[in-house]
């Protein structure tokens, strides 16, 4: 029996009614937040100090410049290149006959100008060796970590970045290019794993690729950025919460429990994209902010993640860039202009990322076909292909 929608419909109705009832209150909070944004922008230095000194359980953006600063995009260049990668994977399935996973990386190179050109390709890689399936500590201390689920997602991000850096290295000297990744440049999930995992995937993987791309800038201009569509982050709204709080500096663990005023609640529930939808005109970007994520603070160093919000016309996107892009005016402008241009060419979403996704995507049918190939080759080699009774039961349904 599949999902009985008639039983769900009433619950959906209740959810929608709740959303409708809350919409006026949300609107009021958003109006208030926009007012606070402009008001607090005037006194940047004290707020900057307060944010830096405060300790919060929620993520608060680091301040670089006036909160409500906004910038128009520089004119489009005549000749430029856009690179992008995206990935998809088939996770380890313990119910299947072989323990393995597959990462498929889609790459895209789009050259614009007098001699336009495009490269679209995909690189599927099967990982099945003992050393591929776990990350083991260098010393014998610590438990090895299985690469599956969230950890496989992080490994895939590293592979996407590695392919991007590889493509960037092939770009001719003197070129102007934007290298784009999908999602965040902050590998959040690593916080849940032991140090040696971070060492391998972040320090020895992702950040090394960022190093490589930074170095390429000695002979060409390559800006690295990641693009987050419909972001749900509230780092900047959280700055407003700190600003509204009478405590200075604020320590949420200590102060919030005894706080009765709850002034910060006046903006709670608002997210950054809603705030900047009120501030930015089409094509404009927000001020720069810095990520204060613990993984960034601890490991990213010269690649410290900065971000800005961008009105791409159809929505507010979040663009993350390493510090060396943020501090180089040319690279920053290149990022802003080319992301806007990519969105215009791509019906509201960067065309290079959209095509990279198309190259990378692994559909449900692909997954089934993949496992069929695995099973049939194993059968050819007269290897046993045991599968779990649960998996069999799902595939062979009976009454």
């Amino acid at each position, binding site marked *: 029996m599949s999902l009985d929608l008639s039983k769900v419909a009433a619950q959906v109705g209740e959810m929608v009614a709740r959303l409708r009832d809350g919409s006026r209150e949300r609107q009021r909070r958003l109006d208030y937040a926009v007012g606070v944004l402009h008001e607090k922008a005037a006194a940047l230095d004290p707020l900057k100090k307060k944010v830096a000194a405060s300790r919060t359980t929620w993520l608060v953006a680091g301040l670089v410049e006036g909160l409500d600063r906004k910038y128009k995009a520089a004119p489009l260049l005549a000749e430029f290149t856009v690179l992008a990668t995206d990935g998809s994977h088939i996770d380890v399935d313990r119910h299947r006959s072989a323990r393995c996973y597959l990462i498929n990386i889609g790459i*895209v190179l*789009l*050259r*614009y100008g007098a001699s336009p*050109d*495009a490269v*679209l390709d995909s690189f599927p890689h099967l990982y099945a060796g003992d050393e591929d399936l776990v990350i083991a500590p260098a010393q014998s201390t610590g438990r090895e970590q299985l690469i599956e689920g969230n950890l496989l997602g992080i490994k895939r991000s590293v592979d996407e970045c590695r392919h991007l850096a590889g493509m960037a290295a092939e770009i001719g000297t003197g070129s102007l290019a934007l290298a784009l990744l999908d999602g965040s440049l902050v590998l959040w999930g690593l916080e849940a794993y032991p140090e040696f995992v971070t060492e391998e995937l972040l320090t020895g993987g992702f950040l090394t690729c960022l190093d490589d791309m930074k170095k390429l800038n000695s002979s060409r201009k390559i800006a690295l950025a990641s693009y987050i569509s419909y972001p749900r982050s509230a780092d900047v709204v959280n700055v407003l919460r700190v600003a509204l709080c009478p405590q200075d500096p604020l320590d949420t663990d200590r102060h919030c429990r005894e706080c009765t005023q709850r002034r910060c609640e006046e903006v709670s529930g608002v997210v950054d994209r809603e705030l900047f939808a009120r501030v930015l005109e089409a094509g404009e970007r927000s001020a720069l902010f810095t990520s204060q994520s613990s993984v960034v603070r601890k490991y990213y160093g010269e690649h410290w993640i900065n971000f800005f919000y961008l009105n791409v016309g159809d929505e507010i996107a979040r663009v993350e860039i390493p510090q060396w892009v943020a501090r180089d005016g040319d690279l920053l402008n290149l990022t802003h202009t080319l992301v806007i241009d990519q969105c215009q*060419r791509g019906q509201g979403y960067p065309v290079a990322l959209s*095509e990279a996704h*198309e190259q990378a995507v692994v559909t449900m049918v692909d997954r089934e076909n993949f496992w069929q190939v695995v099973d049939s080759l194993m059968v050819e080699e007269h290897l046993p292909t045991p599968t779990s009774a649960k998996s069999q039961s799902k595939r062979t349904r009976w009454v």
Partner: protein
Amino acid sequence: MDKTERVGEVIEVSTAEFVTQCYELYQPPPLGSLVKTADMPVEVYGIVYYASTGSLEPGRRPIARGKDEASEEAVYQQSPQLLKLLRTEFNTLVVGYREDGRLYHHLPSRPARIHGFVYQCHPDEVREFSESFDFLSTLISTGLPVSNEEITSAALRQMSLVQEDPRAFLVAAGKELAVLLGSDFNRLRAILRRIATA
């Protein structure tokens, strides 16, 4: 143009026809032209009866892009990926084959191969193939998505281009058709009208 040019690769095949993906977008051989693909020692000959260009992936339809562009060329300039996402295909009706150097004007014992290279036939080969009109019965009788009269006349027009005396060739073909379509004057007339302008 080099008439033995390799134009594409077989992507779908059956006893009676094969579908070829062109290497160059929008560059299928002309309608009615003679092409061949080989599964050695057999070379399979076919007549192009249909060509189409569309999205490489069935689920992704092209969208209109040129509203703000000055020219059609600019649409492709501004979206360089398009050339990689579209493909041109053509369908070919099998009309004969060559084995051990001998030419036959009927279906081979087995179809060609997927990924077989497809070549546009050299004028000498077209002349040799068209020495016999036996292929005409296949052209006028096979069910096709376009009218048989259109395809038959297109094939004859193409073949006439490489004959020493194109007119004599078309007259001879007309006589052969008169025999084949003796009881169907309207179809005969439709073909004759279409080749009379060649």
